[in-house]
């Protein structure tokens, strides 16, 4: 049995939306190098739509695959939908992760939420509610 699903390996080998958005209006970074995982998300939001999203990740195979999948799940979607992204959705879209790797999908969710927080902060809205 392989360590990861085909889906995970596909997103790990060919990560979608890798890189930086120079004029991003929402940036989030979570994790720390001490624990071995850092994810950084860049959002370009226009008219409440995620026009573009890119990521940079330092981490294991499932961290890279989770970042890639999370960007795919929110790209082109309204902000309101992106705000509802959960780690469960990321995991399911990847056809599952080993139990001890679930924290990677949590990190992906947190990275997106952190970038959205940053977007709202820049807009001068403290709370998203």
């Amino acid at each position, binding site marked *: 049995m392989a360590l990861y699903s085909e889906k995970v*390996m596909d997103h*790990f*080998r060919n*990560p979608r939306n*890798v*890189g*930086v958005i120079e004029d991003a209006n929402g940036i989030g*970074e979570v994790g720390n*190098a*001490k*624990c*071995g*995982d*850092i*994810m*950084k998300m860049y959002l370009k939001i226009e008219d409440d739509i995620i026009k573009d999203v890119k*990521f*940079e*990740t*330092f*981490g*294991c*195979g499932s*961290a*890279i695959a989770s970042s890639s999948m999370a960007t795919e799940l929110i790209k082109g979607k309204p902000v309101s939908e992106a705000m509802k992204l959960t780690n469960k959705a990321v995991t399911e879209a990847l056809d599952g992760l080993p139990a*001890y*790797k679930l924290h990677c999908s949590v990190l992906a969710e947190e990275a997106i939420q952190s970038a959205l927080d940053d977007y709202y902060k820049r807009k001068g809205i403290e709370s998203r509610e």
Partner: protein
Amino acid sequence: MIYADNAATTKMSEAAIKEMVAVNENTFGNPSTLYSIGQSAKEVLEKARQSVASVIGAEPNEIYFTSGGSEADNQAIVSAAVNGRRNGRMHIVSTAFEHHAVLNTLERLKKEGFDITLLDVHENGIVIPSEVEEAIRDDTCLVTVMFANNEIGTIQPIGEIGEICRRKGVPFHTDAVQAMGHIKVDVNELNVDMLSASAHKFHGPKGVGFLYARKGTRLTNLIEGGEQERGKRAGTENVPGIAAMAVALEEAAGKMDEYSAHLTPIRDRIIAGLSRIPHSALNGDAVRRLPGNINFCFEGIEGESLLLLLDDKGIQASSGSACTSGSLDPSHVLLAIGRVHDVAHGSLRLSIGEDITEEDADLMVDSVSEVVEYLRSFSPVWRDLMSGKSQFIL
């Protein structure tokens, strides 16, 4: 495919496989029985014991066959602890980067009231003998120091430590799992009282190993039952495995000089090649290391993704990152030689085997260089290092 994880396990040699099959087919009897097929199995067993003993300069009755290196480590340490407790000596000296078979056994003894001193292994991954001497107390019942480290391959000054222990009258055990069959091991030259070894690290089968215990060493049973192994290790002997181990060890010992002469320059070629990767560092002493061991840290990347991408390129290797260990912390060995967490996550161990060629070596260097560069290209850690937001460690 290039298999570069020989420190994890090795492929059985053809001679060892042949021996294992032959014993299974022809000498399947139980060595404890009196009829001829049982007695033939007993002969096979004792021949193997003699062969293993002669390779390490021991007497046959000082060899106890076990299920592998971990069992031998456990039995050696527990035996010394039982003897120590009997004499009111409850202090053990070891090192911070032992295999978990040793460390976790010591941890258990600590809970039972033993005092454990774990010596520093310094930046080069080598114990300083005078520090062993200073650590020995009146109540020390055991010194246990591994022969060669399983992750970074550094070879310890076992002879000097053995001499100190002999002079101080303290029993000395060494976990020689990585050394056996790769570098010369002679229990008398080195003043070793107990030694552990495992067959699958030198092209023998898995699930078999041995404990050497110098005559006069009082052993405690881990497994109670029949009178096998002179009453010190119960259970019907794994005769085919033991016979195959003896064949593999003789073979490895016979080819040791030739293999070492072949492997050492290739190892150094790989080390030189990987050193050209910016912000990388060799882990452990460059010279006093096993002929097949290469271990590096690459700043800004994580080890598991490195391994997966190398696997895609047909290279099988290992890492000391947390993600590959299943725990939150990276390798205790890398931490023991002073690598910080951030850097230890980006480690790679290549343990090459005898059939490696210079072309393989160059291919590995190229592949590792490519993958490291690729992973760095989208690593936020690397970006911060390059932009000066954080400081390079390597």
